[in-house]
């Protein structure tokens, strides 16, 4: 089929582009490291300068891997939610999942002084933040789901998501009022999003979480395709809807929760990337969309990270600002270009 050929070409380009971007991402930063050096270093060879090697192994490579994981995970969770809620504007950020995760993390970082000491000991460990964040995003998603079953109108679901968002940010606001300057700073840095500064242990945990989420998403491809015809048709085709929905929710919560825990709430990736994939591949088939969203998500996150590092300059801009600056216009452009927004 003609489409298949087109898809193969697109996928090859996308995959090559991703690899190039990965190298570009590692090579650019406050100090530019030549491509050749990056390559030798990554393939196990000796770099001509030991400082370069140090930067690559301890700073640039973990950051690039984090960007890939974050981009993939958030984009896929957006794709799952857009189909599950039959709403093109759904995404982890819009539906309040990220705010839920923020609330969880806020309780841990800002509320540490209020909690009993043995609890705060557990909660302040790296696992604690992941746990709190995942719990936060899961509970918001469950609440949104609960409401969405009473409201058939998909637009209302978005508004509910936005309301949860402002509710959680209000609670976070109250918590900040009672916390110390040091805690506040820690939380503010977290909330601006950060792909760097992750230890290899944290990256390992994040990788496991993202892989688990992606695996569950992979299992959901067939149910998601059935859901393209709506819940009732999907059921009439033998879909165990409740189980499928549970798996989809679990996948999105694990993805959005773990990523938000480590990288902070990152806006627009989850919303915009699936649309870019749908626009480029012109399909709703989730077998194609899964892989294209995965690749686009990783690639776009790497680009955003390159932009945030401001090549040749000392400062690093918060990643959340970059994704919003690039993402918001993309969404508006999509809306205007395709009025019926498939």
């Amino acid at each position: 089929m003609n489409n298949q050929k087109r898809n193969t070409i697109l996928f090859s380009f996308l995959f090559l582009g991703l690899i190039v971007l990965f190298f570009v991402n590692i090579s650019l930063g406050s100090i530019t490291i030549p491509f050749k050096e990056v390559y030798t270093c990554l393939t196990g060879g000796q770099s001509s300068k030991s400082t370069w090697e140090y930067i690559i192994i301890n700073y640039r490579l973990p950051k690039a891997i984090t960007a890939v994981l974050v981009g993939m995970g958030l984009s896929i969770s957006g794709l799952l939610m857009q189909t599950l809620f039959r709403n093109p504007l759904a995404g982890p950020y819009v539906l309040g999942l990220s705010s839920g995760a923020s609330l969880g993390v806020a309780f841990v970082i800002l509320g540490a002084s209020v909690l009993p000491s043995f609890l705060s000991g557990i909660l302040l460990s790296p696992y604690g933040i992941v746990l709190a964040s995942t719990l936060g995003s899961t509970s918001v998603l469950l609440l949104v789901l609960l409401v969405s079953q009473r409201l058939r109108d998909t637009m209302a679901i978005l508004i509910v998501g936005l309301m949860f968002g402002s509710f959680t940010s209000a609670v976070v606001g109250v918590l900040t009022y009672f916390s110390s300057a040091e805690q506040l700073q820690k939380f503010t840095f977290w909330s601006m999003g950060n792909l760097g500064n992750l230890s290899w242990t944290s990256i390992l945990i994040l990788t496991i979480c993202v892989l688990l989420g992606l695996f569950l998403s992979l299992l959901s491809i067939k149910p998601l395709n059935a859901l393209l015809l709506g819940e009732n048709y999907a059921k009439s085709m033998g879909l165990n809807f409740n189980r499928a929905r549970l798996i989809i929710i679990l996948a999105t919560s694990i993805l959005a929760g773990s990523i938000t825990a480590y990288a902070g709430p990152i806006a627009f990736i989850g919303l915009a990337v699936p649309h870019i994939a749908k626009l480029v591949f012109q399909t709703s088939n989730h077998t194609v969309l899964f892989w294209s969203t995965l690749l686009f998500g990783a690639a776009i996150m790497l680009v955003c990270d390159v932009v945030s590092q401001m090549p040749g300059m000392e400062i690093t801009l918060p990643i959340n600002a970059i994704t919003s600056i690039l993402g918001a216009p993309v969404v508006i452009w999509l809306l205007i270009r395709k009025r019926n927004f498939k």
Partner: protein
Amino acid sequence: MANNILTTEHLSIGYTSKKETVTIAENLNLNLQAGKLIALIGANGIGKSTLLRTITGIQKPLQGTVFLNNKKITSYEPLALAQNLSMVLTEKLPPSNLTVFELVALGRQPYTNWIGTLSDADVQIVQDAIELTQIGHLSQKKHYEISDGQLQKVLIARALAQDTPLIILDEPTTHLDLLHKVSLLKLLKKLTHETGKCILFSTHDIDMAIQLSDEMIIMTPETVVQDDPCNLITKGSFNTLFKDEHIVFDSEKGKFVIT
């Protein structure tokens, strides 16, 4: 009889809410046979949808049993049920980029593997369904680019691809003009006779249903009767359909007249 596909025994349908039980119809003994096109008619709000929901296993009966291929419908696993019963619903499809071919191919879901790969045999069945419904020229179009009449045919093709002995359609002729109503019902008739499937559809186009269906099920507040259209005319069943003295069924013309 051997070719019974779906039968009901002393079936009562209705709703149970916290306060009370609302019975819509009682003691239904319906019988849907292979190779027959059966129309379900009744005034708005009489409970056609409730009946369809009950015999498709979506809603629990108040009493009695529904048998699908001599097996209780409640004892079917969702997947096994989907291999025996397919549906065409009235609801609007959510927005998506699905092409007509992809939409029809979704009908193969009860048979495909965990990720939904279509085998050569699946593709062949999908193509046969597309050919039977004469929508081949549309197969690469997006589902939102085609007309309501064409979409209805596509949804029927999807049900055909699901390859079930029984297909149930909920008001397939609504929103269609006369030409498309007739061509759709003729298509259904052709399908039952060519494929030996049983097709049950609810409709408000009573005169067309009288002319084209093999059997009819008439729902009135008092009773539910199933028979072939000629017998129903002789029995005068159509006059019980609407509680309005100005609408009278003319048994010679075979249609309703307003007096």
